[in-house]
């Protein structure tokens, strides 16, 4: 049976992570590093296709000084995070955030294929 995703009702930006509250009153955390490593934009996503480039991306995001990002709603289905440095392009659907909150691979093991360029 397909999982029913609860609605995200609150995001608290802390020193190094997000504290998320869903409408079923469950609470989760996502570190800024984990979120930035999972950026779905067309620049970052292909880097996760290979272990080596994925590790490079990981060390890159870990090298950035941690700070609270700006959070902008995108339509009513996603969020965009604006960082002081590095990539701020990714549009994170709520499903993706839910996967990250549950420590699941948001790409579900799928390789990213450049469809757009």
């Amino acid at each position, binding site marked *: 049976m397909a999982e029913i995703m609860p*609605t995200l*009702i609150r*995001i608290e930006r802390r020193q190094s992570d997000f504290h998320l509250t869903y409408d079923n009153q469950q609470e989760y955390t996502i570190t800024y590093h984990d979120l930035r490593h999972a950026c779905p934009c067309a620049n970052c996503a292909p880097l996760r296709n290979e272990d080596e480039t994925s590790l490079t991306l990981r060390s890159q995001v870990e090298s950035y000084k941690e700070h609270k990002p700006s959070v902008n709603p995108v*339509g009513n*289905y*996603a969020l965009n995070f604006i960082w002081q440095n590095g990539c701020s392009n990714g549009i994170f659907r*709520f499903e993706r955030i839910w996967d990250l909150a549950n420590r699941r691979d948001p790409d579900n093991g799928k390789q990213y294929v450049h469809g*757009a*360029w």
Partner: protein
Amino acid sequence: MAESPISTHDPKNDSQGPVQPSPQQQKQMEQNYAQMKRKMAMQEIGRKIKHKIMVLSGKGGVGKSTVSTGLALSLAQQGHKVGILDIDITGPNIPKMMGLDNHRLHVEEGRIHPAKGHLGVKVISMAFLLDDADTPVVWRGPIKLGAIQQFIGDVEWGDLDYLIIDFPPGTSDEPLTVSQSLPNIDGMVIVTTPQAVALLDSRKSITFAESLKVPVIGVIENMSGYTLNGVTTANSPVEIAGPGGKTVKSTSDENGNFSVVLDIFKQGGGKSTAEDFGVPFLGALPFDPGFVRGGDDGVHKIVSDPEGASSIAFTKIVEAVQEQISDKAPSTLEII
């Protein structure tokens, strides 16, 4: 002491007066000034138009321009002030669909005034600038870019509630230029048909939208099913041999009328694509030959048959679009 690499200008020693720019520099300055003015105009236009919606499809021939005109007319029917910007420079056909064939644009004090089509919808299209409808526009990227910026910055749209921007198929220069030139775009509507090839390309469009940082408002499935109406004996079963060897069954009513929906392509592909990508599904539009006739005659089905099934389908889609771009939508989320 080494000579400084920086030259200084001392007006006291200047016997020849201020240096006059060369004609080339003068031209460059004029171009820069015009570009700056256009950029400011684009910012101003961005403020004066409340909602800007891009309509794209990965594949050609899925009915994108029909959907664009349908959305515009449906919004205009609700009483909104609406414009359509036909960015399909090499194949512009919105004017024909809006009954504006052979219309010429009015230019006043360097500003282009859009043509007005059915229900007062304002239209700008490359078609208005072509001497002959059979003349192809063969332009490379940079020239297209200039034309698009001109279409945005030099047009006197006035105050609009909605601007619908119709693009050529695919993921090329045009949406990129528009998304970088026009501020505060609400998002993209992606049009598809249920066939696998169109769905594959729609997936590219969704990825493309994310690359451009433009939200996907949702996916519309066009040519979703053909409604066949008929009359037979009252209260009797009806069987129609549908596409792909599928038999479609129905029962006639007490007057003998029956109606079945034939899936000319497939069914539900647009919805499943939207679900796969986690973007909203805005609705399905029926396969309606009236759209083709209406497009050719310059009278859209929404204008000629405002109570018809296709008009109702458009109204539902417009409601779904409005729900997505509503300012109220994200307010349930608290960000601290």
